[in-house]
């Protein structure tokens, strides 16, 4: 039994997708419908080389965006191949990924975490909730958009955005251009 799986795994193609720098129809089909999936905001002039630590911050999500983020470290997307990793400490973080609606209780904590991060830093608003409040825009105690609190580098639309969208957005935030353009050029 063991050897059979071992042999089968040798013959098998890798699970990991080449997206966004290579074409992968399965992943591309799951991207946000239209081209407005990713909206770059004020891009900083200085770009950083890649060995990026990500601090995720949940400020009122439904946990769907977190579920997709966890899959990034799985074998299908394996975002470590681009040098990304999750970090528990804001002090180590280069990118802050905020998920969920911005509640009044979390707003000061978001500001605090942002202050704690060292420069240069990026902020990514992930999912409809963080971008505009989504369905909960008018809920009591919900502030609305993340950009009203801290400067946002880039927003990734979707509810939840697919892991493909997230990888594309993260690379965009780091490199300053759409990684899918590389795919078209080659």
């Amino acid at each position: 039994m063991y050897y059979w799986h071992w042999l089968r795994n040798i013959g098998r193609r890798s699970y990991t997708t080449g997206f966004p720098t290579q074409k992968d129809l399965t992943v591309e089909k799951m991207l946000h419908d239209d081209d407005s999936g990713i909206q770059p905001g004020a891009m900083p002039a200085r770009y950083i080389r890649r060995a990026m630590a990500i601090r995720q911050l949940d400020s009122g999500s439904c946990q769907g965006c977190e579920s997709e983020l966890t899959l990034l470290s799985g074998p299908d997307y394996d975002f470590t191949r681009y040098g990304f990793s999750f970090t528990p400490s804001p002090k180590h973080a280069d990118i802050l990924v905020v998920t969920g609606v911005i509640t009044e209780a979390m707003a000061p904590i978001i500001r605090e975490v942002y202050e704690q991060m060292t420069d240069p830093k990026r902020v990514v608003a992930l999912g409809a909730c963080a971008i505009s409040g989504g369905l909960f825009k008018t809920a009591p105690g919900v502030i609305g958009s993340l950009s009203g609190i801290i400067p946002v580098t880039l927003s990734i639309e979707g509810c939840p955005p697919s892991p493909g969208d997230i990888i594309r957005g993260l690379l965009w935030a780091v490199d300053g251009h759409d990684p899918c353009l590389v795919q078209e050029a080659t």
Partner: protein
Amino acid sequence: MATLVRTQRSYIVEQTDNPNHWQEQLVVLSQDHDVVLLTGHRDQLIALLLSPQTGILREWQLTGNLSGVPRPSDFGVGSSLAAERILNDTVPSLSWNSEEHVERRVHGKGVFLYPLGPVRADVAESLMYRLQVMGDEIIRLELLNGFKKRHIREMAQGKAVTDGIALAQRVTGTSAFAHGLAYCLAVENALKIDVNAEVMLTRMIMAELERSYSHLGDLAALSVSTGLPVPQMEYLHHKESILRLNFRLFGHRYLRDVLAIGGMRVPNSLFQDNVAMVGREIVEILDDIHRIQDGLENTTSFLDRLHGAGTIPKATIEFVRPVGPTGRSSGRVCDMRIIRPYLRYPETDLAPPLESGADSYARFSVKAIELKHSLGILRRLIGGWNPGVLRSLAGLEGKSEIDDDVAVGVGIVEAPRGLLVYRVMVNPRSLTIDHLDMATPSARNWYVVPPAMANKNIMQDFPIIEASFNYTVAGWDG
């Protein structure tokens, strides 16, 4: 003095000035019933009780001032159970929370407070842990939630019933379908809408797909908490495979935007896929799951960390009555698919696992077996599934026939994390939601975490125990 009234028929059960009489009534209620929901509506307090033996749901209404009335927690419903908190938030005048409530703390030499959160771990929801440790041993844990309240119950008020689905599906991401389903069942129950067998079958397939990917995610989290990335990666890969399957079949990875009241909003993608091929894929996943689980069951470093870690004390089990996999791993028969069959579950020969260890291993084992069962059910269901029939189905159209001011309905499902109940009051004329209540499994089960954590565990067990529960904060805060 308060009164206890059976609603709908307005049958008065008890109306007395004698508080002792009250006590007797509540004792009777809580001993052979599971209290699933207790919440305020206007100036009334409503308790929904479910009998574990018969599965019959009863609705009781309390009116008036509660001073002098014993709090439900005195009779087996945890002192800080969500219900009482909800009541405190919604109708403070009708609550038991006294002002002189003092925070209990452990004091002594060598006791340290270890605050953790709300920003914590790698990818995690916002929740504050306050651990009190003595050396390495955890002697007390306090949970502070409420950082991410979205007020979903209030948001639903006044919305059209069809818009409520989207809201319900955003309570908890990895139980999105179960929430939508419970909501739809409640509305269909209120408006007396029947759905046909084919819709039920499709809903069942979706519910089991959701249970599978949710359990796969839990098992992945548990594997990595014990430092085993290989099974974690394999579980995550299968989770992704099922999410892709969801997308191919229903057009959404988390099965949102498909449900409709009285039917299904059938996506075009459903017909482009070969159903037989989906069946084959599920068999492949099932085979692989067997192999991974055999591997884990033979890894002593994994088993050693799980056995005896995070055992829920007996008193807590009786007090909180946990539901879902946690309940089944502590010896409680609590699978709603059996107790109170809905959709077409009676046709499946489902035998939910039952363990009595109440520790991390028991929870792992129950989830692992349930995952196999779910995939097994899927394999059988998909064989007899004909999505072509769904094409002609419409959802709720126009007005309902009920000519009344208000219609009340209840929907009960077994979500991946356990018993989930929705109760809606709708206006049948305008088809809007008057009031929405929900009891999520996480809101109830979180209360077993502190006693289980402070039960002879050390700090190194903390991530393992946390992963073995894996409840959602979103479902708790609501």
